[in-house]
């Protein structure tokens, strides 16, 4: 199977390990990721906060490029995903001559894509090292689900894709209420005080629910959740979901990815004998 891949800017820098694990896991599942040629930044919050046209056009350019390929467009970053979806929705409702987008493809978040039945089955078949005993809280954040009219999420208040994936890997998935609570990612540089407060609450609830680690599907959330934890010694690790996939599938790059984390996530894995 072949799909287009739009990594997004963060995956070139701060979220390198996410990019690496995505490519490795998809490779292992026989999914060919074809990076969208000449893709540009989606504009993120900065574009839609300041200018409607930028918010529409920056993602639109990518959509048009992908349209030419006719392959579904897989996006690992929730922020990019939402910007692309929002732009797509507008283009389909009100076509723009500059961006002749026909909509021959589906824009999908990598998480939702991998949680599709046939992929989950593939994963299940290939699990080599079940994550038995690892207690994880799946954290989806905002933009993969909201607003559902744009993202197409069927259960925006209680998404289950990551839960299902983690369960398929044999992890112990914690039930908790803060799956989609905002972490303040877009404010992390300008108002770190706000982001810190939001992150604290999310982590507290995850711990109370009994989680040893969080799992994320978005580079913004992941980095925010890590950086806003401060210096305390009881810091909670935050995995990318593809890292855990890679681990369970027995892929070799895992250690390298995990080393890049600001909060070392290896402790709980060692305890369970997973690395």
């Amino acid at each position, binding site marked *: 199977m072949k799909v287009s891949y739009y990594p997004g800017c963060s995956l*070139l*820098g701060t979220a390198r390990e996410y990019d690496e694990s995505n490519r490795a896991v998809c490779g292992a599942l026989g999914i060919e990721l074809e990076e969208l040629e000449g893709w*540009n930044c989606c504009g993120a*919050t900065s574009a839609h906060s*300041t200018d409607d046209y930028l918010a529409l056009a920056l993602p639109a350019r990518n959509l048009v490029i992908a349209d030419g390929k006719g392959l579904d467009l897989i996006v690992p970053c929730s922020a990019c995903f939402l910007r692309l979806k929002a732009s797509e929705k507008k283009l389909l409702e009100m076509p723009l001559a500059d961006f002749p987008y026909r909509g021959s493809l589906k824009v999908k978040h990598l998480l939702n894509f991998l949680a599709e039945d046939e992929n989950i089955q593939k994963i299940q078949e290939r699990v080599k090292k079940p994550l038995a005993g690892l207690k994880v809280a799946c954290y989806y954040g905002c933009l993969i689900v*909201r607003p559902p009219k744009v993202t197409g999420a069927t259960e925006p208040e209680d998404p289950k894709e990551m839960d299902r994936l983690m369960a398929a890997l044999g992890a112990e998935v914690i039930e908790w209420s803060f799956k989609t609570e905002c972490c303040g990612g877009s404010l992390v540089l300008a108002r770190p005080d*706000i982001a810190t407060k*939001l992150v604290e609450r999310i982590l507290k609830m995850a711990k109370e629910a009994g989680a040893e680690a969080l799992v994320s599907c978005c580079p913004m959330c992941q980095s925010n959740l890590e950086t806003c934890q401060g210096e305390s010694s009881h810091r909670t690790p935050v995995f990318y979901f593809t890292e855990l996939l890679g681990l369970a599938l027995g892929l070799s790059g895992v250690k390298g990815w995990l080393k890049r984390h600001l909060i070392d996530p290896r402790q709980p894995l060692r305890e369970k004998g997973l690395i």
Partner: protein
Amino acid sequence: MSIAPQTSFLYHIEEKSGEKVSLCYQCNKCSSGCPVTFAMDFPPHVLLRMVQLGLKEKVLGSLTPWVCASCETCTTRCPNGIDIARVMDTLRQMARVAPAGAEDIPKFHEAFLNSIKARGRVYEVGMLLEYMFKTDVWAKIKSREIIKETKLGWEMFRRGKMRLFPHTIRGLEDIKKIFEHKGK
């Protein structure tokens, strides 16, 4: 003090945002779900109420749209289907100056967009440098705040998370064109 309503402002916002703010029946759901009300001067429903009554100065001077995290919680749950986050965008766009407490936010956006404009993608190191410069590095150094940020930068660098050399995309002229159209 007292309020004398001015409906033209409401119509203006409605037109610009494409959202019917007048539909809001003040159920307060947006505010009770908004994660950052603690940092706002007016919770979202109050801001919308002020838009309804046309309190232009207050609205455009409010901190609220600036600290809004664009989490879309309000938009998702509003029973009247009002895209409140979208209204926040509009208000942010209309308010040229950010109020106290949000001064850094437009600077961040500017740095971010400049980075895109220059190379088509965000070059994190460059973007951060620009942002730090704009937000008055000297004051920060004095208040030792900068230490935190630079330390974070170092941590990232150490782990290979800082891409030191920028990448310029092919087809940059498209991007330039897009930026020329800005404000359309």
